[in-house]
């Protein structure tokens, strides 16, 4: 798939299933299959976007990558070393591998800690000397575009955009290699989004970061990603370089997603990507699934299928035709 011998982060055949209790007295335990056999890899310096509708399992995938959700099966490798299962490193050891920026900037900061405490405590925990902590916090504040003396404030004294900057500073304070961005701008005002996106892109270059971005907003994805993975009901249905996905969306679900981007020009011209007639036919011997959207349910296993290469690094999930 890649010439690169070993990607920075590799997710292999990851599944996350949650047992769901039927009721208080019911013994039946169904499994909610949030993530099903997902494999993906992230190269150094890359931004990989995972897109899909809410409930498709993309956030669960994000939590698994930063170690907040134990996988049911499968494994995650960081620089070739497994970080899940019995061999997983401690929380301390894991902290410098991957960090996460949360969607809601109002719930992601401890309201009873000053920004300084939120940033300094992890540094002290990781054994940074007392004399250096203050300078490092100052540096982080500047890095995300805030004034260092604002660090003595409490989170409620900041706006949503500023809070998200603090959230980014906290994710970066320990110098992680991978940052998982869980819908980093979807809770923000439209006018603030561009600022945060540009900040993230700038930080990626300056600090040589690699991003995994979880999003349902394709205009953000288009702006930030190198590669895109489209998730549908816990599975990756299409993956490839962003331009290949946007220019040549093949899976019906990807086409619907891209067709849903509001485009005033297409609207005027009366054309739409969702136009089924112009859809490329599936390769011989295969079929797309599902024929009808929403027929799936999260409790049953998806039909047997495989990812088939249709272009360089561009894969589509297909089911063998009967």
């Amino acid at each position, binding site marked *: 798939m890649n010439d690169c011998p070993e990607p920075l982060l590799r997710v292999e055949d990851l599944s996350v299933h949650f047992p769901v209790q039927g009721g208080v007295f019911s013994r039946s335990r169904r499994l909610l299959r949030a993530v099903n056999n997902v494999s993906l890899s992230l190269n150094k310096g890359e931004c990989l976007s995972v897109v899909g509708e809410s409930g498709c399992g993309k956030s669960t995938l994000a*939590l698994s990558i*930063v*170690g*907040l959700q134990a996988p049911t099966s499968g494994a995650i490798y960081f620089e070739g070393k497994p970080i899940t299962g019995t061999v997983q490193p*401690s*929380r*301390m*050891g*894991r*902290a410098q591998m*991957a*960090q*996460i920026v*949360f969607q*809601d900037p109002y*719930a*992601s*900061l*401890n*309201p*009873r*800690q*000053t920004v300084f405490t*939120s940033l300094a*405590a*992890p540094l002290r*925990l*990781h054994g940074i000397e007392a004399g250096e902590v203050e300078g490092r916090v100052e540096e982080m504040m500047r890095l995300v575009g805030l004034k260092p003396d604002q660090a*003595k*404030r*409490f989170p*409620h*004294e900041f706006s949503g955009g500023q809070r998200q900057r603090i*959230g980014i500073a*906290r*994710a970066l*304070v*320990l110098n992680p290699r991978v940052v998982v961005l869980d819908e980093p701008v979807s809770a923000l005002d439209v006018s603030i989004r561009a600022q945060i996106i540009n900040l993230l892109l700038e930080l990626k270059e300056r600090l040589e970061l690699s991003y995994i971005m979880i999003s349902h907003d394709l205009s953000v994805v288009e702006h930030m990603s190198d590669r895109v993975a489209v998730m549908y009901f816990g599975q990756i249905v299409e993956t490839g370089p962003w331009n290949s996905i946007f220019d040549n969306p093949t899976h019906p679900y990807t086409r619907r997603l891209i067709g849903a981007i509001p485009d005033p020009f297409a609207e005027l011209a009366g054309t739409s990507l969702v136009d089924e007639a112009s859809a490329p036919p599936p390769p011989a011997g295969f079929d797309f699934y599902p024929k009808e959207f929403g027929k799936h349910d999260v409790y049953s296993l998806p039909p047997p299928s495989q990812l088939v290469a249709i272009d360089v690094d561009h894969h589509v999930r297909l089911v063998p035709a009967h």
Partner: protein
Amino acid sequence: MGLRLNLVIGGVLCVLIIAAAVLAPWLAHYNPIMDADLMNAELPPDGQFWFGTDSQGRDVFSRILYGAQVSLTVGIGSQLINTIIGLIFGISAGYFGGWWDDLVSGLTNLMLSIPSLIFALAIMAVLGPGLPSLLIALGLTNWSWTCRIARSSTLSLKSQGYVQAAKTLGYGDARIMATQILPNMIGPVLVIATLGMGDAILSEAALSYLGLGIRPPQPSWGNMLTDARELIVIAPWAAIFPGVAIFLTVLGLNLFGDGLRDWLDPHMRTRRA
């Protein structure tokens, strides 16, 4: 932001009671135990005996001041024990879940189903009367509400982004509970603790009234009521004043607890450098 009326009234009442307890040796005109003079028994309030005298001729005012010491010690001490027990059980149950949560929740429900005064009575019967027994009896029987509040707060707090972020930053479970979860439930827990102090003071009065708490001749508001019961028609002041003291203390604590809840809302706090 103006101070809230309930916080002010409650605070003033609490300060008055604390002052009465602390300054009792200087404020009291008479020794609450030794200055018994049967010639002065059952005197109505006047310039010399502000709250009158009881059946033994002791000054009711002086005895109420010393009784405040008992009430406050029991109220604060037992609530301290209750709060610590409730927090440890509640936070750990909410945080870890699983069998530990089932066990703690079961125990909490069991505690709630036994009237706490009856339970305290049983403990007092085993330990015998006295202040240390009172602290233990009341400190072990009233932690269920703190535990419940702590558990439910933990359940909602542990899914917050900052708790999750603390995990990814390498914080251990104990540190997360102490620095990320506990400070964010201080408000409701303090309110419960303050209201519980009122309960504890009432329970102390009840146990002492029944002869299981503070033993006479040492004064407590509860055993003062016991003494006064027989002569309530002849010397009502001996019963009224301890009753009023209990009422004002519990009222003050309740108002203070309410006001505290509003004041502790983090959105009302400003910068603290």
